[in-house]
């Protein structure tokens, strides 16, 4: 039995289709990330699962139960919000116990759950404080705690780290991952940050325009993107693209022509306009470029030294390629640089449908 199942979900606001025929199956204990840019529908989908938004069509099942018409508090979920949404006039302890008191749970049960959550999140010393006296990271932990005490199977996270600064984000990301490893609950996590997605997810669902473009593990998403949008969205720096055409198993473009043996294709015998994609780290440079199947010559336009690597933007006859160089390499600005890549590391997309070839 899946932990969460979504069948044929539609959501219309008036005439605007926000979510369209969405289907999703999430396994027990899975950490699923809904990833996409603003307006893709990821938060909307999460709110539908939570029961905070009413759907137009379809069904939602949580732990085998049809919760399509159930109130949020009856769905067996806990939710963590971007702005934490802690009750400002109550102490941390009050925040954690408010919902439980409302459900008329016995006092010792409430105490037990609060203590357990406080221990897991290490907020025991903060119990008597009010939210205004807490730091951002502490507030977020309390928000997670509020979901924890509900003793539920499914946790929902709505961009919980977006309000924090970079360092705090990195720290809390690790804490959330550790939490998942400890509790083994199903977690559905919404974010626009691909790093969060890649590091936390068991599977990522990349969304655009209310649809799921690809649902797969981070590894597959990164190495076998199904559509150009996914390939472009994941990976930093962005994947390099080159326009061209394919016929008789050959790729031709203004810069290069080469045979496509060695490329594992999804669509055999494709012919037509295509877009070639290759990641910065899959482009060799300098001497090693001479060993590559495809070789190009360009000049270095821009250098971004990151310490561990250096990113170089190479101009090849007007087309720009980002190339990842070793941090210690001695490449300089305006230098002529040979670059190259092979068919085993490229991605090809139909120029019209943007589907993987």
């Amino acid at each position, binding site marked *: 039995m899946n932990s969460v199942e979504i069948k044929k979900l539609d959501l219309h606001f008036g005439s605007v289709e926000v979510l369209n025929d969405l289907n999703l199956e999430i396994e027990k204990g899975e950490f699923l990330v809904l990833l996409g840019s603003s307006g893709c529908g990821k938060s909307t989908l999460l709110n539908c699962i939570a029961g905070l938004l009413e759907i137009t069509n379809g069904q939602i099942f949580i732990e085998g139960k049809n919760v399509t018409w159930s109130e949020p508090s009856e769905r067996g979920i806990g939710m963590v919000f971007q702005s934490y949404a802690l*009750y400002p006039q109550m102490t941390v302890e009050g925040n954690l116990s408010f919902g439980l008191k409302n459900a008329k749970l016995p006092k010792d049960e409430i105490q037990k759950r609060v203590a357990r959550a406080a221990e897991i999140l290490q907020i025991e010393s903060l119990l008597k404080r009010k939210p205004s006296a807490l730091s951002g990271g502490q507030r977020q932990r309390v928000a997670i705690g509020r979901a924890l005490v509900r003793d539920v199977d499914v946790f929902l996270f709505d961009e919980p780290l977006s309000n924090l600064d970079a360092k705090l984000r990195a720290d809390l990301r690790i804490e959330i991952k550790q939490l998942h490893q400890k509790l083994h609950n199903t977690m559905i996590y919404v974010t626009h940050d691909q790093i969060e997605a890649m590091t936390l997810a068991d599977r990522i669902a990349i969304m655009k325009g209310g649809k799921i473009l690809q649902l797969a593990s981070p590894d597959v998403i990164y190495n076998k993107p199904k559509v150009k949008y996914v390939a472009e969205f994941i990976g930093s720096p962005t994947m390099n693209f080159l326009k061209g055409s394919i016929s008789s198993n050959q790729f031709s473009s203004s810069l290069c022509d080469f045979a496509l043996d060695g490329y594992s294709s999804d669509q055999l015998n494709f012919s037509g306009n295509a877009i070639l994609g290759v990641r910065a780290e899959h482009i060799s440079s300098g001497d090693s470029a001479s060993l590559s199947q495809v070789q190009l010559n360009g000049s270095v336009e821009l250098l971004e030294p990151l310490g561990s690597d250096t990113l170089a933007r190479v101009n090849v006859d007007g087309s720009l390629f980002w190339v990842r160089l070793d941090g210690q390499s001695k490449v300089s600005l305006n230098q002529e640089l040979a670059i190259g890549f092979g068919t085993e590391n490229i991605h090809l997309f139909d120029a019209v449908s943007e589907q993987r070839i």
Partner: protein
Amino acid sequence: MGWLILDTKNEIMDQKRPNQLFRNKTAKIAAIPMILTALFVFVGGTIWTITYSFTKSGLLPKLKWVGLKQYDRLWATKKWLVAIENLAIYGILMLLLVFIIGFILAALIDQKVRFENTFRTIILYPYAMSFVVTGLIWQWMLNPEFGVQSIVRDFGWKSFSFDPLYNSDIAIYGVLIAGLWQGSGLVMVLMLAGLRGIDQEIWKAARIDGIPTWKTYLMVVIPMMRPVFITTLVLVTAGIVKVYDLIVAQTSGGPGISTEVPAKYVYDAMFSGQNLGQGFAASTMMLLTVAIVVIPWALLEFGGDKKHG
């Protein structure tokens, strides 16, 4: 103003720091009305009135010191005592009711009702009208011949009696009804603005926690709205103390003196009673009442720092 602009230009290009007094000269000149008003009218006028309340002024102000005599007389005058009592009844009830009504209306409208604009327009329009108009309208609505009483009687309830304005004991409540009609819209608008300022995610969190709507309002939202409540409280109180036109229009202070209020007492004493001293003393008392509410609020709101906003 050409030469003034030139002046500022020179100031910008000037190497040494310009004389403090002449900096922002134009701004200071432009603010003269404000400074004059603040000093002479607000501070000066108030001090003047307070000072003269200790004198034996009759038809004209006379600088003859009599200490607290005017105040003694004031507090021995039945008309004043009735006025104060009325203000207390009107004030306390008005405050309570206008908040309850205003908040409930705001909460109802906040439920994303349809026709929100229509409801708001209807509830707020009385505020756009003069107190005189309001007073007259309710003078007629409460008229036993053809107002509410006669309507209810027409519906069959023959013994229904509702003419507060003819009954000395409860006339002030008739004024209260009119005041509520006029003022609830304002409170509703302010409360609604406050409600809209509440983070939507708090509502979501409460729903996930399973907290029923009414409880969320009571235990989460209202505590969060404390600043709005306090501001509204101060505004309404300041308005209540000033109530004058409403009384004049609706009841002229009657029947008898049963709807007298301090503001009317002051006006009557000053301009028809030829008793300025009493008028000054009474208005000083009014000032005191307002001060009791406003000063603690100001201290709370602005603490020790004098910065605004």
